[in-house]
C-alpha cells in the first residue's frame, strides 16, 4: 500500500479471533482489536492525530510546542506527529513510571516535565494542585503551547466513534458485538467505541476496566482517577470492574505465548478482565445453543514494558547467568578464601615490594575522580562483575589490591579471584574509608 504520509496509515487495524481453546469460553467468540498495529504503536495514534491535526495544520513550521499530560502512548504519538510538522512536543506528567517509555520519548525528541510529589508537611489551605498551575501556564498571554487536552477533548472520543467503532461493526459483517470490553484511561476509546456500537444496536453491553486502587497498570486509571477525567461518564458502562497488574501480566503472557499477539500489559488486562467477566455469561449460555460475540482492545505492544514485568514477575525474564559471579559465593566461602590486608600493610606492600600490586578501585568514576589512591586503576564494580565473567584485563601473575568503600565488595571479589586461580589478590580491609581515616594519602584527578 502506498501513502503520502504516515498519518494515512492510522486506523483500519485487524480484528483477530482468539482461539477458543485458549480462553475456554464455549459459546462466545472473542475478538481482539489490534490497535497495537497502528503506525506509532498504539490505540492513541487515532486520538492524537484527531486532536492535534487542527493545531498542527495551523501552526506547522512555527515555533509552537504541542503539550499534553501523558506519560505513555499519547505522548509517543504526539511527539512523532509534532516532529513530522516541525514542532516541539512537551509531556507533563505526574511520574514516568516505566523507564523504557521515558527513554523512548526522549529518543523521539520529547521534552519531559515531571510534576512534584505530594507535600510532606502539608498546608491544608493550599488546594491548588499542580495541574491547576499547569493550566494557568497554558493560558498565559503570549503562550505558544498547543494543548491537546486528551482528558477533556471531545475529539479524543470522536476518533474512536468515527474510526475504531465503525471498523469493528464492518469487520463483524455489520453486526454489533454483544460485549465490548475496554480499559479506561482517558475514557476516549471506550466512550467513542460504545457510542458507535450503540448507534447500530443499543443492546451492546460495555464493560469498563479500571486498575485496582493500590496497583499500577500502564494506561489504565483507578476508580478514583477516572472521576477526574472529563470524558468519563459512568453511564457509558454497563459495569466497571477492577483488574490487578498480576492479571494484566497473566493476560499479556497468554496473548503472547498462545495467540501470537505481542500485547503489552494494558491489552493483557483487557483480555484477562474480559475472560473473567465473560466466564459467568458463558456458563449461562452453555447448552442453549446460542452464541455471543465479544470484542476487546489490544492497546499496545510488549517491548516497552520489560522493566514493568521484571519488577513484578522476574521469573518470566529469568535465565541463569553463566560464568563466575561474586553472587555465587556464600559468606563462609568469602571468609575462608579471601585474603585481606590492612591499611598499614597495604602501604608497605605498595612502597617496599619488588612487585607492587596493581590497585583496582571498584568505586564509581565520580568518586574515583574526586579522591583515590595514587596509581590505582578504576574499574567500577558493575564492570568488574562483567569482567570476571568474560575475562579480566590483568594476568594471574599480577598481584592485585582490591579497594572499595568499606572493604565489603572487595572482599567478595578477592575470594572469587582466589577461587579463579589468582594466587595473590587481596582486599583492602576497611576500604577507602579506613585508608582516609588512617591519614594515608589520596589524590584528586
Amino acid at each position, binding site marked *: 500500500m502506498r501513502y503520502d504520509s504516515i498519518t494515512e496509515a492510522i486506523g483500519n487495524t485487524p480484528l483477530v479471533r482468539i482461539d477458543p481453546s485458549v480462553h475456554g469460553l464455549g459459546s462466545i467468540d472473542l475478538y481482539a482489536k489490534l490497535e497495537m498495529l497502528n503506525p506509532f504503536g498504539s490505540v492513541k495514534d487515532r486520538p492524537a492525530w484527531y486532536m492535534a491535526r487542527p493545531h498542527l495544520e495551523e501552526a506547522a513550521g512555527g515555533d509552537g510546542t504541542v503539550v499534553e499530560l501523558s506519560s505513555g502512548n499519547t505522548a509517543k504519538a504526539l511527539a512523532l506527529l509534532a516532529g513530522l510538522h516541525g514542532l516541539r512536543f512537551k509531556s507533563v506528567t505526574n511520574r514516568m513510571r516505566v523507564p523504557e517509555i521515558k527513554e523512548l520519548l526522549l529518543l523521539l525528541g520529547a521534552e519531559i516535565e515531571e510534576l*512534584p510529589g505530594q*507535600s510532606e508537611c*502539608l498546608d*491544608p489551605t493550599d488546594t491548588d494542585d499542580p495541574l*491547576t498551575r499547569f493550566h494557568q501556564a497554558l493560558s498565559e498571554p503570549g503562550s505558544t503551547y498547543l494543548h491537546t487536552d486528551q482528558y477533556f477533548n471531545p475529539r479524543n472520543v470522536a476518533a474512536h466513534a468515527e474510526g475504531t467503532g465503525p471498523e469493528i461493526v464492518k469487520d463483524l459483517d455489520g453486526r454489533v458485538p454483544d460485549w465490548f470490553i475496554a480499559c479506561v484511561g482517558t475514557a476516549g476509546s471506550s466512550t467513542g467505541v460504545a457510542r458507535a456500537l450503540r448507534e447500530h444496536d443499543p443492546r451492546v453491553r460495555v464493560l469498563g476496566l479500571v486498575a485496582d486502587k*493500590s496497583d499500577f497498570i500502564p494506561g489504565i486509571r483507578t476508580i478514583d482517577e477516572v*472521576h477526574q477525567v472529563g470524558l468519563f461518564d459512568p453511564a457509558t458502562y454497563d459495569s466497571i470492574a477492577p483488574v490487578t497488574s498480576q492479571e494484566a501480566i497473566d493476560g499479556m503472557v497468554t496473548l503472547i505465548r498462545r495467540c501470537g499477539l505481542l500485547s503489552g500489559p494494558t491489552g493483557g488486562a483487557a483480555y484477562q478482565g474480559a475472560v473473567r467477566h465473560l466466564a459467568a455469561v458463558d456458563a449461562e449460555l452453555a447448552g442453549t445453543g446460542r452464541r455471543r460475540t465479544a470484542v476487546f482492545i489490544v492497546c499496545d505492544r510488549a517491548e516497552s514494558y520489560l522493566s514493568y514485568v521484571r519488577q513484578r514477575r522476574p521469573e518470566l525474564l529469568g535465565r541463569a547467568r553463566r560464568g563466575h559471579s561474586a553472587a555465587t559465593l556464600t559468606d563462609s566461602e568469602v571468609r575462608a578464601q579471601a585474603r585481606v590486608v590492612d591499611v598499614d600493610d597495604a602501604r608497605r606492600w605498595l612502597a617496599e615490594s619488588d612487585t607492587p600490586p596493581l590497585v583496582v578501585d571498584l568505586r*564509581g568514576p565520580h568518586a574515583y575522580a574526586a579522591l583515590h589512591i595514587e596509581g590505582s586503576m578504576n574499574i567500577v564494580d558493575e564492570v568488574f562483575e562483567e569482567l570476571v565473567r568474560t575475562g579480566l584485563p590483568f594476568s594471574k601473575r599480577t598481584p592485585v589490591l582490591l579497594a572499595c568503600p568499606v572493604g565489603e565488595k572487595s572482599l567478595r571479589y578477592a575470594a572469587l579471584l582466589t577461587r579463579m586461580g589468582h594466587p595473590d589478590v587481596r582486599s583492602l580491609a576497611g576500604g577507602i574509608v579506613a585508608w582516609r581515616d588512617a591519614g594515608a594519602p589520596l589524590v584528586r584527578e
Partner: protein
Amino acid sequence: MKDAPLYLRPRVDPPLASLLRDVPFLHSLVDALGSPLNVLLPEVVAENAERFRSVYRRHHLAGRVYFAHKANRSSALVRRLAACDPAAVGIDVASLEELRHALSCGFTGDRVMATGPKDREFLWLAARVGATVNLDSTGELEQLARLVREHGLGRVNVLARLSEFESDAGHGGAGTRVLSRRSRFGTPVAAAEELWTALERHQDTVELTGLAYHLDTTGLEEKARALERCVLMMDECRARGLAPRAVDIGGGFGVGYVADAGEWERWTTALSEAVLGVRPALTWRGHGYGLRNEGGTVRGAAALYPAHRPVAGPGYLDRLLSRPGPVLGRPPATLLLEHLNDLYVEPGRALVDQCGLSLVRVLDVRPTGDDPTRHLVRLGMNAGDVSLEEHGVLVDPVLLPRGGPRDDPAGDGPVGVHLVGNLCLEADLITRRLVYLPGLPRAGDVLAFVNTAGYAMDFHAHHAQRQPVARTVAVSSAGDAWRWCPDEDYWPLTHPQGVPA
C-alpha cells in the same frame, strides 16, 4: 439503612498498644490531670532513633540522626534522645528557645544543628556553644561571620543549605526535568558560586562541614536528584580547597497513621463519590478536602496526608538510599560511601512515630438535627489541641469507655459522629470528617488520639477563650504497671522515682 462504617483505624505498635489496653490507668490520668492530656513514651523515641541508625549500619554510613525539635516541645523526648549515643543522635533546633531547651536537656553544643530563620541572639548562642549552623543564605553567612569577629567567638561549623535543584541544568543527564515546590529556604544551586566565594573569604570564622537540603515532598525521585547533586557539589567544594564531610538530606520520611490500606482506599474513593454527589457527604457540611465537582468531573487535589503509608520513616530512608540514582545510576548510599561522605538526617514526625497519645474527655453526646443516626460528640479540647486535621492527617481516635468495655444495651454497633471542640466557634471541629466509632460514646468516656507526638500535640495549642492547654506527662513501663511523671520532671534514669530500698 445505616451506611457501612468507613473506619480509618490507627496503626498502633506494641508499647503504645499495651498502654491503650490499660484503660483504668488512662482514665485515672485524665481524672487527675484534666482534659485534654498529652501522654508521651520517651523510650519509643530512642527505639526509633535506633531504627534509623540500623539503616545507616546496613549501608555502612556514618553520621548523625538529628531530631527536628519543632515536631514536639516535650522535655522528656529531648532528654531521652540526649541520653543516646552522642556520635549517633543530635538535635535540630529552629529557634533560640529550642536551642536553650536542647542544651538544658543535656545536649552538648557539638550535637546541635541550628536551622531555619535565625536572629542575632540565636546565632550568637549557637556559635558560642559550638553548634553547627545550617546556613540559609549568603546574607546569613555574612551576619554570622561578623558576629564571630566582633565577639571573638571560635570558628563555627556551618552547613550550606541548597535549594532549587530543578533549575540546575549543569549536571543533567537524567533527560527529564523534575519540578519541585518552591522553597523559601536555602541558596539556589544556580547562585552557589557566590556562597562558595563568601565561605572562602570567611574561612577564619567559619568552616564548611557539609551541604544540606530539605525538600517538602513525599517524592523519592526529587530527593534522589538533590542528593546526587549534593554529592557532586561536595567534590566541587573539595576541589576548591574547602573540606566538607557530610550531606544533610533533611527530613520528610513520613509516618503511616492508618493501619489498613483497604480502609484508606475505601474512604478516599468514598470522598470522590461524595464530592460527585453519588453518595451522602462524609464530612461536616459536605467539605471536600480540596476536591470539587465541576460538571460531574472531580477537579482539584485532596489536601490530605497519605495516611496509610506502606513505606515510611526508616524504611523510606532505606528506599531512598537504595534506589539507583537518576543521573549517575549508582544508589545514593553507594555514592555517599564512595565519595567518603557522612550522612545527616533530620527526621521530626518519623522520629516520634508511636511516641504519644492525646487523651480527651467526652463532654456531651446528642443526635444531629437532620439525621438521627449521626451524633455530635462534644469534647473537652479544641482543634488546636490535636492538630491532626491542620496537617491533613485523617485517623480515628480510640474509644476508651469509662469503667472498661461495656455491653451495648441498645446494640447499635458502629455509629457516625462529628467530633466538635469546646470553643464557642462554628469552625471548632476536631475533624471535618464524619468519624465512625464502634459504639456510641457517653459523657465521661475518653477518646485517645493515637500518634500525635509529631506536630499534632502542641504545635497549634493556644489559650483562646481561656480554655486550658493540655498538660503533658511522660509514661514508662515498670514491669506490668505504668509509671508516669510530668513531662518537665522526666529524666532518663533507670529508677525515676528513686532506687527501691
